[in-house]
């Protein structure tokens, strides 16, 4: 018998055995490499261009003082924030989609982004707060919205469709609230709010990198530790629970992780649209594996965001766009394509 779909069992003495999906692992490694390469390219991009080789030399600590300043102080933190935000959104999106068993179950659709935006807008418009306070407001907004969706969708456990429908409702309400807050704002605050709401990596520095990195270091291993249980839950709650998965607890842990990742990412870069929606689906098409594809989605998210940031700086001539515009345009096109193919396949 062939071991199930392209996975290889690795067995060691002492009863230790691992099961590796070779293709998924290869996809994750290639995507991670591509994301890092795009990151290096991006560090060299800007008014002062630096060749990729020089970027690498500078990162290794052998650059000139000028290169050190440009790379370490100006561009590296921005690229790292981009990588981390993309990774967090990709993983968060994969978790939401797996838990809701719906490719539309993404933070954009569920209203988490709008929740973060509401938090940020309250700080900008009503409190005229500092950048750090805006970040805190966005974080709080995202977390509160996540908790709210979870509470409202909870009825003898959270179910996929209810989660998506409740999320869409919350999203609509929050969009109205955000619109109202914008009309209350004076011109300067409104401009600042709109830029924030588009999602941008401009001016990100080390103070954004560390908290995000810290969160990922804690949350990602917890999530990966629950990956096997999540795989069982694809078959329905009853089947998973018959196999010994504590379904409600697993879902609570994973939803909390997804909300934390998304809220933190949004707080750092604004609601960068569609990355959470597209990354898991693209990753899935590459791995051709039915599973939640957590690691490939994470790497795909990082690649998507850094590539979009590069495009936003280079592709439109002199106009530098916020990265959220690029992901929005690409993601919207992708969403249409998804709807058309799913329709053809008769799934919606």
């Amino acid at each position: 018998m062939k071991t199930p779909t392209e996975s290889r069992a690795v067995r060691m003495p002492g009863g230790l055995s691992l099961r590796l999906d070779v293709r998924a692992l290869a996809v994750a490694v290639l995507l991670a490499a591509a994301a890092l390469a795009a990151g290096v390219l991006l560090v060299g991009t800007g008014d002062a261009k630096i060749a990729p080789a020089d970027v690498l030399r500078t990162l290794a600590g052998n650059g000139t003082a000028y290169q050190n300043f440009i790379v370490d102080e100006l561009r590296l933190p921005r690229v790292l924030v981009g990588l981390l935000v993309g990774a967090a959104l990709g993983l968060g999106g994969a978790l939401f989609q797996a838990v809701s068993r719906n490719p539309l179950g993404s933070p954009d659709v569920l209203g988490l982004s709008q929740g973060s935006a509401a938090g940020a807008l309250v700080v900008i418009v009503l409190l005229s707060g500092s950048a750090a306070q805006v970040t805190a407001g966005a974080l709080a907004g995202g977390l509160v919205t996540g908790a709210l969706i979870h509470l409202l969708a909870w009825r003898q456990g959270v179910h996929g469709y209810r989660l998506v429908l409740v999320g869409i409702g919350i999203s609509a309400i929050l969009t109205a609230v955000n619109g109202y807050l914008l009309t209350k704002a004076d011109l300067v605050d409104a401009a600042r709010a709109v830029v924030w709401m588009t999602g941008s990596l401009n001016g990100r520095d080390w103070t954004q990198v560390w908290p995000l990195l810290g969160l990922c270091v804690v949350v990602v291993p917890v999530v990966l530790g629950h990956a096997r249980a999540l795989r069982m839950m694809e078959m329905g709650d009853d089947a998973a629970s018959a196999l010994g998965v504590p379904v409600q607890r697993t879902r609570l842990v994973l939803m909390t992780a997804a909300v934390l990742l998304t809220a933190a990412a949004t707080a750092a870069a604004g609601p960068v649209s569609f990355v959470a929606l597209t990354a898991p689906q693209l990753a899935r098409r590459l791995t051709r594996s039915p599973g939640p594809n957590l690691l490939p989605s994470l790497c795909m998210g990082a690649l998507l965001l850094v590539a979009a940031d590069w495009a936003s700086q280079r592709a439109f001539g002199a106009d530098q766009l916020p990265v959220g515009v690029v992901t929005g345009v690409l993601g919207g096109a992708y969403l249409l394509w998804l709807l058309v193919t799913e329709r053809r396949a008769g799934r919606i």
Partner: protein
Amino acid sequence: MNTPGTPYIPGSTVNRLSAEHVTLAYDQRVIAEELSVEIPDHSFTVIVGPNACGKSTLLRALARMLRPSTGRVLLDGQAIHSLPARKVARTLGLLPQSSVAPDGISVGDLVGRGRYPHQGLLRQWSAEDERIVREAMTRTGVADLADRYVDELSGGQRQRVWIAMTLAQQTPLLLLDEPTTYLDIQHQIDVLDLCAELHESGGRTLVAVLHDLNHAARYATHLVALRDGRVVAEGAPADIVTAELVEEVFGLRCQVIEDPATGTPLVVPASRAARAGRGRAAGVSGTGVS
């Protein structure tokens, strides 16, 4: 644990699975109160009853899916809800009424998932897992389909694959919630034959909820008839399936004859005319072939 072949002693408490005075409810809707059921070890127990009598609810409670609001379900002498899910899953398997095969999953992969309760982070796929999965597929006749996608199988084949998955779980107790629903008649018989084989050859205890009373009477070694959340009768089909019982449980006038193929009770609904004349001809059951 009982050794295989231990006879069932009615009223004894040595059975591995039982419900003791349970009240079962969804939200505020009470399905059953003070319900007690013993599942005889090594039996093929079938639970029957009209729609909404609580048979699937009872099965869910026995499988630890539904927590009784009062009373308890006992597995090997312990309250099943006090045991960890994974531990229960090594003793008791359930084939739910509705399961979703993930998109693009192969038969081998799906059956392999039955090994989950025996695996861990550092023991993900042992040689033993592989052997057991292969054996489960052979026993259910799906070994040749191992590399096929589950989506492209017929309903009957798919049900065999799901049963193979629960077999790979290697539990001495196996619960099946309406395993024949949505299947053609030949596949219904096919699945029931498979269940009977598994029951006879492995010393396993099987519990199934079935819709069809004649299938139940033919395959069960122990029958539990439910109505409105209480047990109307339980015992061997030949002992309890009578026209009176069918009328009491299902509200259907009928006669019970001997199944010419197996000798088990066969329920033949009375003709329309005879049923229209109910009340006039009391005691028509078992007499007057029309």
